């Protein structure tokens, strides 16, 4: 998207309940999040003429047939293709669609209905390269791939599990102030370090809990926002398949657009009052923080030693607990941070509200290919004065 918009932004946010397992349909979770977001925006179904959806389990349906399910007449429809980086990108594209007159108000939804075995089935048919050259090795789904990335980061830069654990523990503390989180039991650093091995060096609390749920926001002209509830995008960027040809890189693509992102926003990492980072694994939050300029490459261990990441901390990260504690609702995992950011900027954070917060960064990541996530995205959001 590049530079942000002064006239179009996010005017509502919502989510569905998160469940570990149920018979409910995917449509029911997407619909629940959609109704919640519309109510938050003060709009009704008839106001919506644009629809953007990100969902792994949606096929054979798509944005248009979801519109039929929901009874929407649409002038603009968008189907995300970038996995967990898709929802942030979908919002940036929706802002442009409203600016250019293709739609007046866009509903952006992301969600899925997984349980643990459902997620392994997803990874077994994720794309041709993994089907042909990963699955027959018993690769262990995303866990096997990200274990190799984490080991490489640990061996290259000296990053330790205890440093990554500081982040995981603080994110769990955030979840304990979020009634919607599926995992809100107390977790100590020892709990994190001693948990059952999933794919060494990854242990249980490095891995997300696949679940059912959905997240949604409404994008329209900011003059339609309820008073004090508008959130504008100062800048947004995306990048796919970088670095070309590397299997388990220690960078994702954010580093290519970070300078342009901050230049468009007119501010830098030190100005961000929170980061909602894509947390499929703590190591990927670490890599995002490096690539997005919160510390030099390889020095995230020291950043972790020197900071706290709770909503009251020196660098608030994933103030709702993130996917690691809320559960990963498939592609909804790429929107949970965005919705939490909007909630914080509307000062609707409840028990975990950051005081006087006015701006922050949301980062997306996903679409695992032959070795690593191919897609990255980021958006800088600011509360309307």
């Amino acid at each position, binding site marked *: 998207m590049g530079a942000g918009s002064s006239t179009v932004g996010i005017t509502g946010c919502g989510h569905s309940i998160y469940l570990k397992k149920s018979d409910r349909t995917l449509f029911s979770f997407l619909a629940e999040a959609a109704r919640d977001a519309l109510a938050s925006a003060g709009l009704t179904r008839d106001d919506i003429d644009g629809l953007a959806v990100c969902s792994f389990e949606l096929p054979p349906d798509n944005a248009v047939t979801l519109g039929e399910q929901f009874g929407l007449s649409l002038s603009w429809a968008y189907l995300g293709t970038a996995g967990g980086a898709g929802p942030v990108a979908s919002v940036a594209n929706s802002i442009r669609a409203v600016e250019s007159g293709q739609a007046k108000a866009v509903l952006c939804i992301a969600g899925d209905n997984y349980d643990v075995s459902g997620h*392994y089935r997803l990874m077994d048919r994720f794309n041709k390269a993994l089907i042909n*050259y990963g699955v*027959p*090795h*018993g690769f262990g789904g995303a*866990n096997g*791939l990200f274990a190799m990335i984490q080991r490489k980061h640990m061996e290259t830069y000296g990053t330790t599990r205890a440093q990554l654990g500081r982040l995981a523990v603080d994110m769990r503390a955030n979840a304990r102030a979020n009634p919607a989180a599926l995992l809100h039991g107390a977790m100590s650093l020892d709990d994190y370090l001693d948990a059952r091995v999933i*794919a*060494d060096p990854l242990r249980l609390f490095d891995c997300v809990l696949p679940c059912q749920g959905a997240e949604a926001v409404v994008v329209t002209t900011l003059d339609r926002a309820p008073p004090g509830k508008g959130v504008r995008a100062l800048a947004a960027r995306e990048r796919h398949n970088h670095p070309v040809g590397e299997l388990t890189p220690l960078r994702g693509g954010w580093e290519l657009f970070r300078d342009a992102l901050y230049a468009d926003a007119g501010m830098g990492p030190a100005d961000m009052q929170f980061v909602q980072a894509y947390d499929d694994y703590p190591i990927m939050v670490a890599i995002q923080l490096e690539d997005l300029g919160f510390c030099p490459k390889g020095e995230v261990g020291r950043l972790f030693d020197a900071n706290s990441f709770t909503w009251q901390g020196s660098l608030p990260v994933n103030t709702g607990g993130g996917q690691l504690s809320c559960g990963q609702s498939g592609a909804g995992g790429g929107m949970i941070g965005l919705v939490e950011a909007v909630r914080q900027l509307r000062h609707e954070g409840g028990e975990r509200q950051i005081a006087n917060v006015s701006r922050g960064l949301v980062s997306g990541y996903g679409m695992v290919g032959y070795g690593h996530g191919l897609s990255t995205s980021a958006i800088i959001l600011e509360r309307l004065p």
Partner: protein
Amino acid sequence: MTPAYPQPGVDLDNARFIIAWRERGRLVLQRCRGCGAMIFYPRTMCPGCWSPDLAWVEASGRGVVVSYALVHRPNHESFNGEVPIILAEIALAEGPMMIARIIANNPATIRTGLSVKLVSDVGRYPLPTFTT
């Protein structure tokens, strides 16, 4: 009875690679006649220069471990009796990187930088698999 390993799909782009392994226990790679690049995984054109003129060459079957995971929760039940699955990123002697399984009696002996070679039992594993 343990179910069979999941098998790779075979198509016109990758058949030479799959069949060389399955029938002869050998690793073959694509070499681009346009730019000379060695390529893995098999493509329909060179991802470096987009030449569709690709030759198949037999590789040495040797490489070095770049990183690895010890997978205790595999994706498919056929692997459950063989955990931990040693999954590794391997720098092949010919240049390309490959994600492949390593067979070792003691997974604790696996290290980054370790030299590995193809296993010798033909037909057992679905894809080129390495040992120390």
